[in-house]
């Protein structure tokens, strides 16, 4: 055990960073306890160290710290949190400390919040279909247990409603297993956190959920820790306790902004839009903590939510997220304005793990083909709509007019559904066939003849 020396010699404070001088035996990544003149304790982490100076990032921010009177104690280990089943049903702050008035969590098991990279060889490829009861997701962008599937949204759009609906309705078709929700708020407003808590309470999952809040008024650097604390608990619950954990992270854009703030105060060379060059690797260290592991019962499914600044999907945050996550659910302003709920965009949304989680024995044999055909036909609708905007609908061919009708009905009946409407996968696919049956049989080139014969509903001559 090392003796803990208190250093009082600060050479500077800049943004969230303090520079401690004359340090000895400090390790890279070590945890730091910082006390100001009035004895208030803050937590920090060593970012850089040489023989003279340690650069320390203070999670609670540096407001109220002074060069003289601030004392720093280096603890020879990284940030750890206790992990225990008792943490379910509790509310924590962004650093994992209880804020619900109940006592501290006591556990023998302290876990490093940074985790360790999962060996790809020991991963189990995720295949279990999760029914969310939302047609646009189940039918066309299936969520799989152990997947990381973000919601790309824009300001004002109902991403929180959708996430809450998923948390409430999600279930496995094959078995009933222990299921928990971990809700992580980063820089969001209190009422959004309140909405989630209420929604979890209504559906009765609150006692089995853990909530981590780093709200908009919390110091921004704290947000860099919050998802790691939450995922550490998730790993414990999933891989030690064998639970199926759904982690909702909102809002990842705020997380990235905190990272940018830290990077710029360290004077690093920025890459796109001022974000640091390592944004991809940093996001990966959060997202890659989802998954399943061979021989373990539990799983971690992540639904990160992020708002795209000015609905721009090529902004670094959604862009780099999309490169790491296994697909994305994109919300579309146009559908939202039309009053479609959930406004899940037909084309840019994607679930990469869908292909192995659907089909005979999992959902239904025709699922993959129906989804592919809906995508292809809806893509055609988009092209025809663009044309109709120029030449006028009257000028379109008869077939094109049928496509337009298909497009409208698809949005009204298939995409749209109620906030409390929980559709089975059978219902979703049957509605899909109803939609496809609007089109002439020859247009269904992605579907086998056999399935057309079985499911296609011939129209009664009124087309």
């Amino acid at each position: 055990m090392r003796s803990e020396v208190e250093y009082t010699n600060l050479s500077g404070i800049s943004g969230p960073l303090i520079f401690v001088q004359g340090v000895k035996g400090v390790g890279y990544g070590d945890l730091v306890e910082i006390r100001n003149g009035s004895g208030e304790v803050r937590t920090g982490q060593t970012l850089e160290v040489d023989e003279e100076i340690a650069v320390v990032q203070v999670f609670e921010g540096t407001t109220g710290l002074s060069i003289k009177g601030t004392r720093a104690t280096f603890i020879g280990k990284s940030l750890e949190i206790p992990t225990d089943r008792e943490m379910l049903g509790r509310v924590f702050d962004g650093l994992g400390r209880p804020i619900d008035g109940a006592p501290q969590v006591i556990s023998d098991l302290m876990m490093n919040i940074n985790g360790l990279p999962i060996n790809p060889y020991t991963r189990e490829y995720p295949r279990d279909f999760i029914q969310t009861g939302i047609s646009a997701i189940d039918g066309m962008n299936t969520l799989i247990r152990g997947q990381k599937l973000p919601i790309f949204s824009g300001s004002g759009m109902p991403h929180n409603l959708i996430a809450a609906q998923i948390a409430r309705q999600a279930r496995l078709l094959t078995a009933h297993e222990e299921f928990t929700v971990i809700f992580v708020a980063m820089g969001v407003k209190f009422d959004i956190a309140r909405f989630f808590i209420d929604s979890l309470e209504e559906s009765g999952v609150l006692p089995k959920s853990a909530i981590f809040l780093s709200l908009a008024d919390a110091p921004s650097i704290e947000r860099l820790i919050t998802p790691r604390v939450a995922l550490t608990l998730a790993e414990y619950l999933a891989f030690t306790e064998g639970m199926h954990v759904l982690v909702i992270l909102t809002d990842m854009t705020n997380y990235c902004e905190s990272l940018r703030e830290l990077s710029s105060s360290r004077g690093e060379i920025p890459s796109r839009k001022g974000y640091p060059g390592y944004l991809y690797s940093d996001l990966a260290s959060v997202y890659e903590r989802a998954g399943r592991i061979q021989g373990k019962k539990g799983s971690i499914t992540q639904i990160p939510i992020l708002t795209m600044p000015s609905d721009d999907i090529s902004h670094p945050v959604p862009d780099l997220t999309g490169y790491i996550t296994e697909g994305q659910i994109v919300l579309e302003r146009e559908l939202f304005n039309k009053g479609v709920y959930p406004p899940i965009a037909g084309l840019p949304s994607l679930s990469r793990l869908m292909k192995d989680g659907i089909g005979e024995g999992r959902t239904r044999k025709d699922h993959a083909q129906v989804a592919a055909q809906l995508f292809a036909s809806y893509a055609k609708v988009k092209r025809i709509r663009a044309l109709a905007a120029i030449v006028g609908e009257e000028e379109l061919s008869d077939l094109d007019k049928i496509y337009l009708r298909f497009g409208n009905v698809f949005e009204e009946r298939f995409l749209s559904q109620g906030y409390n409407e929980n559709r089975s996968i059978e219902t979703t696919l049957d509605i899909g066939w109803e939609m496809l049956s609007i089109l002439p049989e020859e247009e269904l080139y992605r579907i086998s003849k056999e399935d057309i014969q079985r499911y296609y509903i011939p129209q009664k001559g009124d087309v």
Partner: protein
Amino acid sequence: MKEASITGRIISVNGPIVKAEGLTEISMFDIAEVGPDRLIGEVIRLEEDLTIIQVYEDNTGLKPGDEVLSFGRPLSVLLGPGLMGNIYDGIQRPLIGIAERCENHTLIGIADTCYIRKGIKIAPLDPEKKWDFKPTVKEGDVVKEGSVIGELQETELVLHKTIVPPGIAGKVAFIVEAGGYSIEDPIYTVIQDKKIYNGKLADYWPVRKPRPFKNKKSPITPLITGQRILDTFFPIARGGTATIPGGFGTGKTMTQHALAKWCNADIIVYIGCGERGNEMTEVLNDFPRLVDERTGRPLIERTVMIGNTSNMPVPAREVSIYTGVTIAEYYRDMGYSVAVMADSTSRWAEALRELSSRLGDMPAEEGFPPYLATRLAEFYERAGLVETLSNEEGSITIIGAVSPPGGDFSEPVTQHTTRFIRCFWALDKILADARHYPSISWIESYTEYLNDIQEWWSERESEWRVLRNDAMNILLEDNRLQQIVKLVGPDALPEDQRFILFCAEIIKNAFLQQNSFDPKDMYCSPDKQIKLLKAIMCFFRKGKELLLGGLELSKLLSLDAVSEMVRLKSEIGNGEIEKIDAFIQRLEYSLNSLKEEVNIPHTPDFSKGKSANKDI
């Protein structure tokens, strides 16, 4: 293990970059073992007494004053039997071995096998496994560098040849008899001018140094991938270089997986560089089950994987592509054709950027270091068809994926890459959105290998180049006409132009689009590709003729054969392509009966001659 010859101590730690002093005799790119856990690092810069080391493992907890050791040896990979079917991290630690070793360790509080612990050291190749080795030289024979001295069956698919390493030549003074030997057993001795070399089944080679060969040749055979859009429209040659740029969700990894599964190289080196963990898992799951069409053996037997996923340490990502390509060169030197898939080179470039920024280098474009282009060039130049030191023919084909931010191809990595490759397979967001896979754009993509490999195809089908160019012209014409259609609608076009639009649609749906989950469609043999293309082009040529003769377009479009054509690819397997011939006959018959309707007296031959000879 021999004692460390050079020691020093850390003076500062900044992320994965460690500065140390006292290592006066160390050279650039030597390995250094850092701190109490002896983490693996590599010397990347020397400044007077300062040594700058990038550490390939998580280095939290390192302190100024900690010890640094070096053996004065560059970062190397161990090359020998046992590589096939294995999966390594960026610095050739076997991930399977790590999982087994971690069995009884307490890691982050829980005893667990699923995480990669730092400081773990495991031999890349099993030192105990006995290989059934047969010598091919006798004592007294004279050998030179690259000579084969013996063979062993590494997997059912791969005959492993043990080769005299570059730089060694002389008389064989000792060679073992046929029998079971491990990679640590002495196998042979070569003596020249009193210099004695004792050879084993395995040997080290520095990753950043290309292995030598006799000379490079021009590529002449295509690398058949079984993907129609690639083989027919944008073929790559064995020994060639290609890049697959595409935004997220456009199918880079799906394309790389399809290539690794179906391309007809002898050996596949798959480098997952900074990508998703589940993608490596998918390869590990699928490849032992998928069977190679030519040999009937599982694909894993010809595959080596390097998996440095996005959450593993960044510097190891930088080195992972060199590890992969060095292994590829080793098998090339045995006379094999090797295909290297690197997914994704953008993550590699980002690792380079991150490290260079921590060193305080002056950045060039978008924060990337100025030497990005040089590094890319060096990597792609390790591809090629070569005459090996033992006068055999071996090749390395490199296919690198690029992940441009925002799908914008004007960014530095894509732009620099295009300077060093000869095949550009651009992925298209719009196609991907419509779930048209592979979503490779036929407008933006190009290949420079057409002339090199034309002869190979012409031997199978004399008209191949003409068919391919005519089909390409239809697609280009369609692209041009679509601009007009966007403004006035298709019905405003004359019938012959609408016919082109229709034929382009058939090419897209019946030929370009390929379903990687359909057992009959996932791999398309060259002969099936030719027949399918012939069927479509037969419809186009005869149809055009009929239209000129005055036939109504609607009659042509409503032929039953047309909707049948779209399903040919998934209904007829590679082994029954005579059915496509039968289809073509039926198609010709029904087109000829239409001909009687319009009463064309005399048939000018459209099928030959008049096609554009311009290459696209």
